[in-house]
């Protein structure tokens, strides 16, 4: 995971990034806005309450969000890591956060996902994309609009196509 790229995509625009990602094995916390591993957050909530900047968490794709979803609902940012871009678990995690736990903050994809997944990721509830590699963010933004409609119910469209158009 890239810990602190300068820019990322949020709500279909290129924006500056103030958040630093804290790796699982990291021993100290940087100042400013931070995204800490969710288990670190669970274990150190008291201490994090005194942190100078804003605090969010990041979740790995294998984690059981049922175990902590309730406790992170008020955080401003939840990042979901893609250890490999073909690891599709993050898609389900994002939907659960939005649809089952009603999370309304920023859901940020971090890690190895690729531009060509953006349309589907956004459908699953991601609204922010922090790429590991240096890519043309403005160009990548176009992939959010690969399709103008879709059959299924998802976060961006709570009614299936057959109930909207047929």
């Amino acid at each position, binding site marked *: 995971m890239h810990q602190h790229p300068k820019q990322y995509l949020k709500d279909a625009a290129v924006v500056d990034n103030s958040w630093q990602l804290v790796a699982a094995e990291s021993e100290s916390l940087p100042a400013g806005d931070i995204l800490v591993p969710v288990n670190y957050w669970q274990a150190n909530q008291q201490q994090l309450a005194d942190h100078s900047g804003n605090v969010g968490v990041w979740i790995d794709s294998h984690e059981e969000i049922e175990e902590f979803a309730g406790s992170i609902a008020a955080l401003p940012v939840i990042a979901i890591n893609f250890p490999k871009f073909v690891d599709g678990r993050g898609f389900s995690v994002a939907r659960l956060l939005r649809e089952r736990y009603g999370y309304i903050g920023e859901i940020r994809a971090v890690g190895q996902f*690729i531009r060509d997944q953006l349309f589907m990721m956004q459908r699953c509830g991601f609204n922010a994309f922090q790429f590991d590699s240096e890519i043309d963010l403005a160009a990548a933004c176009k992939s959010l609009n690969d399709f103008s409609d879709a*059959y299924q119910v998802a976060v961006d469209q709570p009614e299936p196509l057959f*109930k909207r158009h*047929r």
Partner: protein
Amino acid sequence: MYIYDQYDQKIVDERVEQYRDQTKRYLDGQISDEEFLPLRLQNGLYVQRLAPMLRIAVPYGLMSSRQVRKIAAISRTYDKGYVHFTTRQNIQLNWPVLEEVPDILAELASVEMHAIQTSGNCIRNTTTDQFAGVASDEIEDPRPWCEIIRQWSTLHPEFAFLPRKFKIAVCGSEEDRAAFLLHDIGLQLVKNDRGETGFHVYVGGGLGRTPVIASSIREFLPKEHLLTYLDAILRVYNRYGNRDNKYKARIKILVRAWTPEVFAKRVEAEWEHLKDGPATLNGSEIERVKSFFTAPDYLSVDSAAVDAELQSQAAEHKAFSRWLDRNVRAQKQSGYASITLSLKPAGVAPGDVTDRQLDIIADLADRYSFGEIRTTHNQNIVLADVLKTELFELWQQAKEAGLATPNIGTINDMICCPGGDYCSLANAKSIPVAEAIQRKFDDLDYVYDLGDLELNISGCMNACGHHHIGHIGILGVDKKGEEWYQIQLGGSANKDAALGKVLGRSLSRDAVVDSIEKLLDVYVENRLDQESFLNTYQRIGIEKFKERVYAPAS
């Protein structure tokens, strides 16, 4: 058949443009090989031993004559003038050029076709019975349900990157012609005691390295809940399927590890949240989709007179009579029949047809079967709804086109994967084995006397040729760099689904045909009355067959 509305068309068109852009960025070096791999696979493009291979979706095996003509034209313009029909009722082009694939996809989209999700770790083409809508043992036509599943699975945002490929089959009849128990999800249409339609849901079937017959997880799922229940199964699989080892990644491994009972509980728990949600089907959508699969305008015919006429034609023409026996099937509408065009004449790779034959198939469909064509998982073509009075004429034309080999259901109607001639994963060639068998058993009287016999050949453990479920299965294996073959006996894809047992040590290619002959001898010597090969095997067991094949040469 289903006809696209503006929304269906737009989604397919936009997919073409998306893929065109992806191909361009790949060729410009903006997408790496590793990243492009799943992108092209999700659009059916493999890179094979000799050239790329493009797999085109034929949703549940149904095509119009217009679509078949388009495939013929594509194979002429972009390929070598022939195509291959697969065991998943799809079509493969063996020699397309990567740069031209977007244009091929655009051509396909112009006739409401695509290659979406024909490969890759996503939900694949849903398959069903080739006799849907005309089978006399049908509980309900499965095709509207397949179409509803097609739309739901097309570009599903959550399930495009599953642990492994995912296959669904729907069975709508008493007899199973869709091998639905050998799919990741097998759906059997059933009625409850109030006469309402629902699905008996099975999960975790499949062939490949670890063949498994699916387990029942729900006996009656009311029809309106189909999609939310599928969402629940897929979500559980997407989250908990093994992603570390591709040989352990199919849902069958998860079902087995958890047990079907626990798996069912997890699905039900997930479904609790989704049940009655917005994806629940409503009557008007079900009726809308069903309205595309209505019966054609059948004529009423004097069945007795037609049958008498057929009998006299059969008496006069031995070859026609053989074709009637093997390639023609009664259907529930009297006066009509379903015929199978054989894509297995000796000397041609099973399932291969030329562009010219495709055009002829389209013409035959326009003339005799309301313009509809069905592909089968046995790699043949079915024309349904043929007036019995026109069978003789149809047979003559099919014969001239090389499509009337009267071998359906016989040993020569084998299922055979592309094998070592095309596929880079193969351990051994499969097409030459098929051909050697067809050449050996060319005496039709002998072949008919053997009766129904399914012989399936796969070039490796991936089992694309379904060798586990052949009455006789042949599997290519690698022995110190040489091509050898293992024989299995007793597999079956029907309701009594069974997996074949290995006969013994593997054989050289030369020995395969002789060994098959010995197996058939044992059958002929031991059968009772009309007993089939499979039934004889089930009664007498594997030993006698084994002894004969491995007996020291005398």
